[in-house]
């Protein structure tokens, strides 16, 4: 056997260069970070994360958790984060429903519907999202009544807020909840039995009728007993604001609607391409079997189209979440506005705060793509 020098060993070379590149890269990062902190130290700029525990001293318009001026900067971070998640979630729900509806409508045989959805897509997709957010916000500001107007009993709306009664839960609510689950269980059981009966005797059962009567009946009872399940504290108008009641700010609506309407255009195109990707033979076979049009859509086209729809839709969910940071333009207190804005300005530690903010957007994005990847794996074509 010929003895080769270790530096001529091909395995050594392969590993050496990879490790060399990796370590140099880490060294570069360490150097940059070191250098930055050394320079900031020299200029007398505070560094570190100690500020997270000190008192914030400013108010935030909307908070899903307990927050006031004596709370810490760490808490402003979570307030902003939850506001970002809330508006992204609402936007995603709206974009998904709207996107599916538009996408399917675009392939409709109805000429008017098809053209209208085309106009919708071409319009909203080609106007920058920031302008759309500003447009919706201005619309709300101009169209809503200047002072509180009672649109439904105990529900008020104005340019400043939508006010609804405060709701607290009574123990009876949990009884209603248990009844609800029992009802659902019964419907499933009934459906199973009906299927069995169908196979054995060939007799059908009115499953849909029974289920809808039960559900509607339940909700009638639920609404009738609402004052037993819940305590409503009606909003009492004060001089400027309601003394009780929950208020929802208009920026939440304008931002989630703008994000939803904009992103729906992209999702609808994904839906359309998904549906078109399903082989025509599949649909024709279904028609030949005499299946109804809605059944074909529901059980044959959509399940196969999902494989094509999911990946681009994931991208759009991510985009929507990232676009929600434009909230700062209309004063919605999201993470960028509250934490990377006000907190950054009061504390002045740009590097730490921007790093935290970027990490959050990265984590949210990774989380969304993780969930959709799992779903994608499940709905992927199974090869036999």
């Amino acid at each position, binding site marked *: 056997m010929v003895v080769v020098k270790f530096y001529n060993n091909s395995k050594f070379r392969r590993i050496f260069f990879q490790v060399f590149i990796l370590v140099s890269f880490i060294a570069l990062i360490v150097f940059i970070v070191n250098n930055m902190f050394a320079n900031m130290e020299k*200029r007398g700029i505070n560094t570190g994360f100690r500020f997270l525990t000190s008192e914030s001293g400013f*108010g935030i318009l909307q908070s899903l958790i307990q927050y006031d001026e004596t709370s810490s900067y760490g808490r402003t971070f979570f307030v902003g984060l939850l506001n970002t998640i809330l508006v992204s979630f609402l936007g995603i729900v709206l974009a998904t429903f709207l996107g599916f509806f538009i996408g399917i409508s675009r392939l409709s045989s109805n000429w008017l519907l098809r053209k209208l959805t085309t106009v919708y897509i071409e319009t909203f997709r080609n106007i920058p999202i920031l302008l759309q957010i500003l447009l919706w916000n201005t619309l709300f500001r101009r169209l809503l009544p200047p002072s509180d107007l009672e649109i439904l009993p105990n529900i008020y709306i104005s340019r400043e807020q939508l006010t609804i009664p405060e709701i607290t839960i009574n123990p009876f609510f949990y009884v209603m909840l248990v009844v609800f689950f029992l009802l659902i269980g019964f419907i499933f059981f009934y459906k199973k039995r009906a299927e069995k009966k169908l196979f054995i005797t060939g007799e059908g059962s009115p499953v849909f009728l029974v289920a809808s009567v039960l559900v509607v009946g339940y909700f009638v009872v639920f609404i009738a007993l609402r004052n037993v399940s819940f305590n409503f504290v009606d909003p009492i108008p004060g001089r400027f604001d309601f003394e009780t009641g929950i208020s929802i700010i208009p920026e939440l609506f304008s931002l989630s609607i703008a994000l939803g309407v904009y992103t729906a255009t992209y999702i609808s195109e994904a839906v359309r391409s998904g549906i078109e990707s399903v082989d025509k033979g599949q649909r024709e076979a279904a028609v030949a079997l005499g299946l109804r049009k809605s059944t074909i859509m529901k059980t044959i086209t959509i399940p196969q189209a999902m494989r094509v729809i999911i990946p681009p839709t994931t991208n759009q969910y991510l985009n929507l979440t990232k676009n929600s940071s434009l909230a700062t333009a209309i004063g919605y207190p999201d993470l960028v506005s509250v934490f990377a804005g006000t907190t950054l300005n009061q504390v002045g530690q740009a590097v730490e705060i921007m790093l935290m903010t970027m990490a959050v957007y990265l984590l949210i994005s990774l989380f969304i793509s993780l969930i959709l990847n799992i779903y994608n794996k499940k709905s992927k074509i199974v090869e036999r």
Partner: protein
Amino acid sequence: MINKILTLLVCSSLLFFLIACGGQGSSSEGDGGQATSTLDSVRERGDLLCGVSTGLPGFSAPDSDGNWTGLDVDVCRAIAAAVLGDAERVKYVPLTAKERFTALQSGEIDVLSRNTTWTETRDTSLGLNFAGVNYYDGQGFLVKKNLNVSEGKELDGASVCIQAGTTTELNLADFFRFNGLSYKSVTFDTSDQTQQGFEEGRCDVLTSDRSQLAALRSKLADPDSAEVLTEVISKEPLGPVVRQGDDDWFNIVKWSLFALIEAEEQGVTSSNVDSKKNDTSQSPGTKRLLGTEGDLGQNLKLDNDWAYNIISQVGNYGESYERNVGPNTPLGLARGLNALWNNGGLMYPMPFR
């Protein structure tokens, strides 16, 4: 097996290299930072980079021809006149309240002259120095007249439009908390947006420094529909800011501001500065200010006619005040606290000697 040993060997040797390199990097950087002073870089560039607001009438706003004017802009112009001999050699960088400190810290601008309140935290923890006060202000409330509010304590539950990242945001929280009142803060990035929100009825009250309230009220479609409450809830000394650790530059900005005020005290104006300079019978104080006696300019590493350049091109503080925010402007602000110290105000330049 051999593979693993090799990897370990390569890794550990590189780790040593890395530690040596990292340690060296941070220590050698110690001297590099000071190499170029702000004064040198301004001279080399031939322009002063001055951070101003995104548009606040009277303090810093572009006029109809696109030229920046205002009380804060005049500070920029004075510094440019002192350093470069030409008040026009300023490049204005409009900044929102949220952007301003980062822009100064990172060296994007040479001086920040943007109605910025001098506070302890900002002076100490941001790596910045306040070079003086060019306007003594206080926070107030702008309310719609039809609400019939006469003082801040009546505002329980009100929605308040406010500019994000300002001291007013903190003062507002303090005021309402201390008085046991509730409020909703509707925050915007620029003062224009707060005014728009106020006008469109998104909030009941707009709070800001009272000078700004006067400016914003003058921009309303119907200025008479709103009034500024007489109540003042905080001290807001506004002034130019520089980076900490460059004392030469700090001195120049500080004394350019003093020169504006001293000129008013000495009665030197842009129209009489030439005759006073040539007149040998002037008081020694005026001669020192105008550089015909003493070496005050050289102490600042500038020419001795630095203050002459400021006064002849920008005017004195009183002229600047009358031109930008005084009673004959849309803002119509009386001198009040901003009068000279010997006129019942707080403007007190340190002695020029």
